[in-house]
């Protein structure tokens, strides 16, 4: 049996079905990321695991114990909130030791654990400050420290990086990955940022409209997306998805006629810009984004569909140029009319 197991979990807000029956198993020491667009139910699902939202149907098991109706305070989980939710009237040390004090731990043990967490998170100089005297990044670390000192069964993170600026976000993301490696703690992490999901997760759970679209390792999701939604949600710029009817020449790629109503998906890096007349598709350059290491070329086909190609070379592409696009047939995806993956060539 898995360490944390959700079985047919549902949540309704009046007539709105926020979580529509989710099954999920999380193994010990695993880093699982819930990702999806806003309103998909990822935070609600996390809060149900935390016990901050009631579970209307289904069950939650943790370490062999049914915690479906156990209050948050008795679940032995720690949560890092998006707003950090530090106690404004307590110092950093008091914030971090609060849970241990409530649990009646010995003062010497509390001191040791707080000192240890402060060292890991480089918070030692700030232990006597109050949260308002800290920067955003420091507050974030205190919130993480508050979770660490408890050595909980599972760490829950609710979009912890979204209040940080871009540079700090990347840095903290790397620190979180390192922290997880060092502590080996079971972690569930909610984000709407697919880069965070890809870089941190052992396994990613993609949610949409209260249901799980796919669960898998980051690369599984990238290479074998279960459907068009996952295919386009994971990866930047997103996968090109084109109605097969618009580009009949694609049938040749698959060596068989493409079923009616099907869609073809191609990652931008699997398209190569060629001189006009060559390649599988002809079009005109709409936009060129030069990012240095790579260049994104937006090509509008003769039929009016826009395709993005990611090129690792630099060349003199100009808006308005006629070009051809060569497709790597080995990495093309075929989706049926309902958006389900029917064939991945790789």
């Amino acid at each position, binding site marked *: 049996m898995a360490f944390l197991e959700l079985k047919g979990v549902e949540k309704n807000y009046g007539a709105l079905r926020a979580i529509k029956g989710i099954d999920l198993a999380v193994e010990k020491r695993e880093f699982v990321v819930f990702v999806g667009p806003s309103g998909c139910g990822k935070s609600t699902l996390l809060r149900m695991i935390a016990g*901050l939202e009631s579970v209307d149907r289904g069950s939650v098991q943790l370490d062999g114990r049914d915690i479906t109706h156990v209050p948050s*305070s008795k679940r032995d989980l*720690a949560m890092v909130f998006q*707003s950090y939710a*530090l106690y404004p009237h307590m110092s950093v040390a008091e914030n971090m030791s609060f*849970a241990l004090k*409530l649990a009646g731990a010995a003062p010497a043990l509390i001191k040791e654990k707080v000192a240890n967490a402060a060292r890991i998170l480089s918070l030692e100089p700030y232990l006597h400050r109050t949260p308002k005297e800290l920067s955003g990044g420091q507050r974030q670390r205190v919130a993480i420290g508050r979770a660490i000192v408890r050595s909980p069964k599972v760490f829950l993170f609710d979009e912890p990086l979204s209040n940080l600026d871009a540079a700090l976000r990347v840095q903290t993301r790397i620190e979180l990955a390192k922290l997880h490696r060092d502590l080996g703690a079971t972690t569930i992490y909610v984000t709407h940022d697919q880069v965070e999901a890809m870089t941190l997760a052992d396994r990613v759970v993609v949610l949409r409209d209260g249901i799980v679209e796919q669960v898998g390792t980051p690369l599984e999701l990238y290479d074998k997306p279960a459907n068009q939604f996952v295919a386009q949600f994971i990866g930047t710029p997103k996968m090109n998805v084109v109605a097969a009817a618009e580009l009949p020449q694609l049938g040749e790629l698959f060596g068989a006629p493409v079923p009616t109503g099907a869609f073809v998906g191609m990652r931008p890096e699997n398209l190569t810009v060629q001189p006009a007349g060559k390649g599988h598709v002809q079009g005109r350059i709409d936009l060129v984004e030069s990012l240095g290491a790579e260049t994104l070329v937006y090509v509008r086909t003769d039929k009016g569909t826009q395709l993005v190609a990611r090129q690792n070379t630099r060349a003199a592409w100009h808006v308005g140029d006629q070009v051809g696009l060569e497709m790597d047939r080995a990495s093309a995806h075929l989706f049926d009319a309902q958006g389900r993956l029917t064939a991945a060539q790789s």
Partner: protein
Amino acid sequence: MTHAAPPPRMSAPLLARTIAAWLVTLVIFFPLGWLVATAFKTELQAISVPPLFVWKPTLENFAEVQDRSNYLLFAANSLITSVVSTLLGLALAAPAAYSMAFFRGSRTRGVLMWMLSTKMMPAVGALVPIYVLAQTTGLLDTRLLLTIIFTLSNLPIMVWMLYSHFKDIPHEILEAARMDGASLWQEFRRVLLPLVLGGLASTGLLCLVLAWNEAFWSLNLTSAKAGTLAGLIASYSSPEGLFWAKLSAASLLAIAPIVVIGWFSQKQLVQGLTFGAVK
């Protein structure tokens, strides 16, 4: 207090605003200042026209107020009824405001409005039923009756004020406490209470002042035994005539304690009001 160098010359609009502020302050302060001045005049000086601005202050009014009526009894009645009703009110209003601020339901708004609506009826509308109730239960002219009345009449305001203070506290802080293993009581005692202490204090002080100065119910439901300072003041505008100087002296004695309390709690109040401003 030390000030840095005085600010450079005021701009015209700022000057106008400053003058206006001073004028408004003077208008508000004038009756109070006049009351204090009159309390130290003789009855004759008090009604002289044109009014006297320079005179030899006298304390005879205060002596007479103490002679004629038992100031300490009235003061004790005021103190007991207002303090007890404020504490009782806070104890009842805090849990109500807590549940409405943190566990909002679809009817919360309606309940709040309904509570406030009870303050919209003029008190005199309820006088006869309450008088009859008090008479039947034998509570007329008792401190218990006044305490109950003060508590109930201030309760809607207390719930509203505490509700708005509680609402400003991020919900997630309480959730964090819950995740940290705090029981409901610990969550209240260790996290919520320190954060709303300022709000509780300012609500309490306001209701203390309201109860202290309450006149309608205390005049109608109490007399010699449980009468408050409001009754003491009113007794100087009696059928025997209006005694301005003694009335002023009695008023001054009546408001003095509450002004002193307000003065000393000022700092804590301001501190308390800005305390939760951390996010």
